[in-house]
């Protein structure tokens, strides 16, 4: 496999991603700042989600999320306002 780094196996080395860059700051705000180098070069496709096909991916996102409920507070306020303005027009 193409690499200039010594090849490792994910399972045999059991790398802990958190330890990949020891000097990394641990402050919460900086926690996610960088896409670190992977501690291993390659891993088997069957160990990834890509091997499980698209079924898994289907459940990751919600496409139909519309809200038909008009009984919440915000809707009730808008409804009141519409009624009030409508009534004022008729006066």
């Amino acid at each position, binding site marked *: *496999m*193409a*690499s*200039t780094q010594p090849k490792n196996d*994910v399972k045999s080395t059991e*790398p802990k*991603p*958190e330890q*990949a860059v020891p000097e990394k700051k641990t402050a919460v*705000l900086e926690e*996610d*700042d*960088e*896409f*670190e*180098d*992977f501690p*291993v*070069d*390659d*891993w088997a*496709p069957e*160990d*990834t*989600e*890509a091997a499980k096909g698209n079924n898994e*991916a289907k*459940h*990751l*996102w*919600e*496409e*139909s*999320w*519309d*809200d*038909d409920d*008009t009984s*919440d507070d*915000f*809707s009730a*306020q*808008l*409804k*009141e*306002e*519409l009624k*009030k*303005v409508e009534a004022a027009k008729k006066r």
Partner: protein
Amino acid sequence: MSLISEFLGSIRAFVQNQNGDELRNWLQVEPNVAQHYYELGQQLRSSCPANSGNIEKLVEKHLPEEDDVPEGRGSPWPGFNSFMEEYLKYWRDVDFNDIVKLYGRLSDLLISCANALANPTYGIMLLQTSMSLSEALSKLVMSITKEPSLMAQIQGDQTGDEAGEKKSIVELAADIIQKIFTSCLTDRSSTRWQPPKGKKIAVYLFANLTLKLLFACDKSRLAVQMFTNLSTSGPALSLYPASQRVTFLYYLGRFNFDHGHYMRAHWCFEEAYRQCHPQFLKHRRQILIYWIPSNLLLGRFPSQQLLSRPEAAGFADIFIPICAAIRTGNFVAFYQALNGPSRDWLWDRGLYLTLLYRLKSLVWRSFTRKTFLLTWEGATAGSDPNMMTNRAPALNLSDLVTTATYVQKLLEGYNPVVTGNILTLTPPPGGQLKRLMPSEGLIFGNKQPDLDSMESVVAGLVYAGLLNGFIARQQKKFAVEGAKRKGGNAVLAGWPVPYESIMERFREDYEDDLAAADAGEATEPPGEFDDVPGWVRMS
């Protein structure tokens, strides 16, 4: 024998054995090296002062170019010797406390390494060294850009990027690393579609290193040329190890995100996430930070299932309030979700402004939908559900003015108060309305919604495909189209599923491009529907 002669003798042996790993191990440049390197520097300072020409003589003596080189063996070459001269000068002159000088020396050293690497016969043995020197330079540049005083010293009397007279240090460093990238890309040992050989094995290593540097310094736009080169002649990404594939797709996704191509960004992040080993939680988390916003902008929300994964820990607190505000069309909640405790987190990752401006149209979509739900009484007349009328489903723009004005008042600081059964808005204490920033108001700061502005909002939503219908200007209404096709459901017809509309619009644009290419109008054919420039897939 002096340390210098001993050192050069070992280097010669590595060259003869074409041992790239040992060359990298020996040709170190960072401060945390063995004491030998500092002693080497000391000897060089005493025996080879600047302009004495002694370094050149030493290199010529210890690294002679060989004539009859047996197969499988190597020989020093002129480019390599120039690089070695530069390397010895580096250790003679280096002062790790003088960052400005260090930057200059290290840049020169990497340029000369890149030149040596370009040698078609032996250059490849410097691949590992090129990598470690590039890493050292980009690390240094990244730390310099965080120190304004150092930047000022290095840039001196720079007239600015706009003048185009002088490149920034990020650009200069990226240029050098890209030179190495190009050297790898143009290696002819293997074709685009064969397992990589020769210098080609390092194409994506250098691409990723350049991208890491550019993104760390907010200069991602400079990556355009590299992606273009990859599209034109780059080897297929799938031929490379998983770590390189995932890293590359992550940066390509970020590039597309930064440039408003959310569909392409989504494709890149999706593949990066799917190919990332589940054990690398931090990497998967980093991908999610941009993959979730990409999907929000495409009208899709992260599911509970996704948000409950370990790599998404804490993300529900950030994204669920945003999704809830979009879902209900509640602008007050939308601004609260973005300006609350999540603001700094979103801002630091370059997400805040994109979400603030670009998600607003989805909130408007739900808001117009809600106003329609509250005002449209259906096609039936009065209390008899069987008495159908010819009324076409429509949203009165004046009703939208009413609801929008109400929300604008809430944003300006009015408070809803219920007295008896009557709801009124009371002005904020002291009667002083909140002065809204342009981005904080419904239209523009404190500008009040009116018929014209509502018409323009609705027209924008129709144009984006988020609303299905047309504006009847005489009647001052938005008329819903296609209700019959949806079994009389006017809401479903007028407010189609956003993701489907956005996808459809994307497909229409692609088909327009195809048609333009067929008619000979386009300069470049658009390729496949899901092509992402820079992402080379097996054909």
